[in-house]
């Protein structure tokens, strides 16, 4: 057996050239955002784009010191981590019950979540704003967490349902025969096998909570604002503060970029779930 049986073969130069062009098309706009965040105002308003310039950290210093972006960063982190953990917990339990038990209401619940999976955030904007105000959780971090968990649950449930459905049930049956109760089977047998699914689900949940703008913008105030919602501080009637807004943009883009490089495989799994059989 030669090594080419294990690794895919090298493609033709044309193949790689096309891939390279596409990769550049994806990367260049994002790299330009990063470069702009290190430019002075004069360099930004130059009518000639330049790749070579004396970089400055002024934009970052300004958004952190004057813009209190460190506070928004902290809010974003708290909200995203809380939303991810809660979604995973509730989602796994619900997906497990739907995959392993036949109970009254299973089908309606399944169809309801499948339809809610695509609910537009714009539909939620007004009622959630009204209800959260009435419940006294508007302008609080937990209010934002609640709506993010709710938005993420349908997708998470169906992603994990697919994973659990493919697990061999014999393992669980054997554990049950050995005297494990249903909850112990879930914790000791199912959960460890579910790691790839949980990884994919957590990335997508975190991504939504971290990136989401419009609901956070409506549901938070100056103190509880998340990082994406703070972007609006730099867009005024007279124009955009490009240096600062790009610095904030880079800070927002960073965690998802890191995740993508660390867990590309799980991301592809999550993206193609629902249409392509894993």
């Amino acid at each position: 057996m030669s090594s080419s049986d294990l690794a895919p073969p090298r493609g033709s130069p044309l193949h790689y050239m096309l891939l390279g062009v596409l990769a550049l098309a994806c990367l260049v706009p994002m790299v330009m955002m990063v470069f702009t965040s290190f430019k002075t105002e004069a360099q930004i308003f130059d009518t000639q784009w330049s790749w070579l310039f004396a970089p400055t950290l002024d934009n970052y210093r300004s958004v952190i010191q004057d813009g209190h972006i460190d506070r928004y960063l902290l809010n974003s982190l708290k909200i995203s981590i809380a939303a991810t953990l809660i979604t995973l917990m509730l989602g796994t339990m619900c997906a497990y019950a739907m995959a392993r038990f036949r109970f009254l209401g299973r089908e309606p619940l399944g169809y309801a979540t499948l339809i809610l999976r695509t609910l537009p955030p714009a539909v939620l904007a007004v009622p959630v704003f009204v209800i959260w105000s009435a419940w006294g959780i508007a302008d609080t971090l937990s209010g934002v967490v609640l709506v993010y968990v709710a938005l993420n649950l349908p997708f998470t449930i169906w992603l994990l349902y697919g994973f659990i459905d493919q697990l061999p049930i014999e393992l669980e049956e054997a554990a049950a025969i050995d005297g494990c109760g249903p909850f112990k089977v879930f914790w000791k047998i199912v959960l460890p096998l579910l790691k790839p699914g949980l990884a994919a689900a957590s990335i997508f949940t975190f991504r939504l909570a971290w990136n989401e703008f419009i609901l956070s913008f409506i549901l938070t105030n100056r103190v509880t604002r998340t990082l994406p919602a703070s972007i609006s501080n730099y867009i005024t009637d007279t124009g955009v503060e490009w240096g600062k807004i790009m610095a904030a943009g880079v800070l927002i883009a960073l965690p998802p970029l890191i995740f993508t490089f660390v867990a590309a495989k799980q991301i592809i799994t999550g993206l193609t779930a629902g249409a392509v059989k894993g």
Partner: protein
Amino acid sequence: MTPARLARLTPYVYILPAVLVMVAGLAYPIADAVRLSFYDWPLGTDWATARWVGLEAFGEMLRSRQVWTSMGVTFAFVVIAVACEMVLGIALALFLEKPVRGMRFFRTIFVLPMMIAPICVGLIWRYLFDANFGPINQWIGALGIAPRAWLAEPGLAFAAMVLTDIWQWTPFVFIMVLAGLQGLDSSVIEAARIDGANWWQQIVRVKLPIIQPILIVTLLMRMIDGFRGLEVIYVMTFGGPGQATELFSLHIYKAAFISQKLGYSAALSILLLVIVAVLSLAILMIANPLKGSTRQ
């Protein structure tokens, strides 16, 4: 309680927390949107002053020129952007379907535009399309084309919105189709080849028909996203100039928080909900995880 009854309750214990959160965060707000749509309620006023107007908001919606303009923009955007993404994504996947070394790395790069925040995408392209210092004007200037005020002219602003969406989402179609193609049973392709099918016939007669369900689900998912999206355009143009790029989701947002008509905005959101629900049901008819279950 007997053990048997306890066992029957187990699944409900598992689903209860998730169901409670989805009811509080999704189902109840939707029901409330329906209720609000029957009232005339300006933003910032007390609920006690809200006036019951029955179906008046829906009548206003159907008569409103702005609603139809925004719907027209949204449909045009969905049709043009999604068509371009599908054609490009499928073509690229067919050209690049052969597994080669290093593909994992390139696939990671292609995912990046859809992983970063939509508002970052909006920011980036607002900057690139800027009339005064935007790099795009400089690039086309190098080709001898006069600079344009991309985001200030209705037609160009619409084109800019479409281009941005193509940049962000063509990789999604590419990855979906690629996953479908690489999951194909190679013996089927081999059989077609032996029967004398050429490269083009293999694609049109064998490969695309087999992955058709994936293609349709991808298409529907992209269409749904077209109706859901507002954040990219919120940052890029805020719907302008005029209503040239005012996608329907943004129109709903503006009705509530700019025009301050909460009840009317709720009525608009019911319309959006119906459109998206129909598209979602179409997906379910093709790929239904409940029916695809391996065990019964």
